[in-house]
């Protein structure tokens, strides 16, 4: 192509190289999102043609107790899980960051549970939570506590799912570990020499320097908890008494069990808006607490 300048040719190459992703974005992401917005204004069971109903699906949500229940369950779970992941993941990362012999084995052991996710993992926990024969209640019985019925009791089912999810802390911890590795040792040592104790050095040197990692984990775990599905579907199927009816589980039921595609699409858009709003809130707040080295204003 002799007519093209070098920079033109480079730009052309760039667009050629990213074309698979660009096509995928249009076919599998942006297109479907627009279509989904369209479907959300209709009533459609997939068998007969969709019928335009305006905002009826969105109005229906306001008076749908299960919609509010699923929102409540998801919000409570998020408030339980996100802080524990932030604090617990960081604590685990600090342990993983120690320089002691055998640390590699220790890291492996703590990361292993996050590899086993999905159905098999939930099945094992269902057995651990078994009211009579489960490990948990057998252990509690050893210290004289009569354990609750966990997954089959509406008061404890959501907490049980939360305990189950803590097994995946290793994933957050590894991301924190990457952040901790980036903290220069000299700064920490300088603080100690200046008379700070270990906690003060951690609080005022380490924490500020890893705020970008905390921020990253916060956004990721917010988005992930709002999409909780497998554990609720497999372990409790939303029950007992809808106490674990997560938002995405409710969306799945509307779409693929009741074939209310219009209502399901409307639910999906509400989910997107909620996640977007929360993410923006976190991003806007980040100016105040996230410290970027070399980017001080």
């Amino acid at each position, binding site marked *: 192509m002799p007519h093209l300048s070098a920079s033109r040719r480079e730009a052309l*190459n760039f667009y050629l190289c*990213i074309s698979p992703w660009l096509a*995928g974005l249009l076919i599998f992401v942006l297109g479907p999102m627009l279509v989904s917005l369209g479907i959300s204004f209709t009533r459609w069971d997939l068998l007969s043609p969709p019928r335009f109903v305006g905002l009826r699906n969105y109005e229906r949500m306001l008076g749908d107790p299960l919609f509010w229940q699923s929102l409540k369950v998801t919000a409570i779970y998020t408030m339980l899980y996100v802080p524990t992941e932030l604090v617990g993941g960081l604590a685990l990362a600090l342990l993983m960051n120690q320089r002691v012999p055998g640390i590699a084995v220790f890291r492996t052991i703590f990361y292993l549970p996050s590899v086993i996710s999905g159905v098999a993992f939930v099945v094992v926990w269902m057995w651990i939570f078994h009211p009579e024969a489960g490990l948990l209640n057998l252990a509690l019985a050893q210290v004289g506590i009569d354990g609750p019925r966990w997954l089959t009791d509406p008061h404890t089912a959501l907490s049980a799912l939360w305990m189950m999810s803590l097994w995946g802390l290793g994933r957050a911890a590894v991301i924190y*570990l990457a952040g901790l590795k980036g903290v220069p040792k000299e700064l920490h040592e300088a603080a100690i020499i200046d008379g700070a104790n270990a906690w003060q050095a951690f609080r005022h040197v380490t924490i500020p320097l890893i705020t970008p990692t905390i921020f*990253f984990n916060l956004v990721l775990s917010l988005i992930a908890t709002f999409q909780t599905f497998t554990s609720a579907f497999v372990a409790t199927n939303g029950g007992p008494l809808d106490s674990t009816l997560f938002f995405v589980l409710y969306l799945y039921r509307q779409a693929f069990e009741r074939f209310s595609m219009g209502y399901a699409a409307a639910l*999906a858009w509400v*989910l997107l808006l909620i996640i977007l709003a929360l993410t923006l809130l976190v991003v806007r707040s980040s100016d105040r607490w996230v410290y970027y080295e070399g980017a001080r204003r």
Partner: protein
Amino acid sequence: MISSSLKPDYAIFAVPPQLIPNPPRWANYPEALTFVPFGRYTLNTLLISAVTIVGHLLSCTVVAYAFARLRAPGRDALFLVVLATMMLPYPVTMVPLYVLFRALGWINTFLPLTVPAFFGSPLYIFLLRQFFLTLPTDLEDAARIDGANTAQIIWHVILPLSRPALATVAIFTFQTSWNDFLAPLIYLQNPQNYTVTLGLQFFRTSYTTSWGYLMAAALITMLPVVIVFLLAQRLFIEGIAMTGVKG
């Protein structure tokens, strides 16, 4: 759990519990395997994972290279779009994608689970781009002077230098496809096509009372990811650190 998988049902609920089953009931394994065709499910899942890995490696490498090295107007804005879609929740496109794949006649085939991989995945594009940025440009410049085009540079210069990053993408992809549940649940309705996670769920709902079988089946399901993880664990944990995830 391993202990339970070797017990007959009455012994699992015995009080006090036996730690070492006596005698171990090895038969739970072959019986769980014949009750439900886990061999078939394993083959299905391996096929889906393999095709998805190939798809991701092909597409993400090229796209990530472009974002890392080629200059073009609009590149940075498009990269922000990559990051934004990384955050996009899957359930949002679940309904329209089902409608799309149904119109294409892809329900009950592996296509909805594999074809999108050939169009890249934002997370792996991001991961590979970060890795490519750390590679020295000298070799590429030399190759370019020698008259190599972009495809040749990616194939002969970048790929050989990127084995750890590519392996990380392959392992992550394997792990995600192997554990995936929601997408197979939606698209695979014929038991012939089930993946292992669907098979396990089917097994669970059909034989709720046989905890011994269930534990055996769950162990069989976990084994491949655990083995792959243990073989590649160093790569795995450092792979995440390597991406320079710093917000």
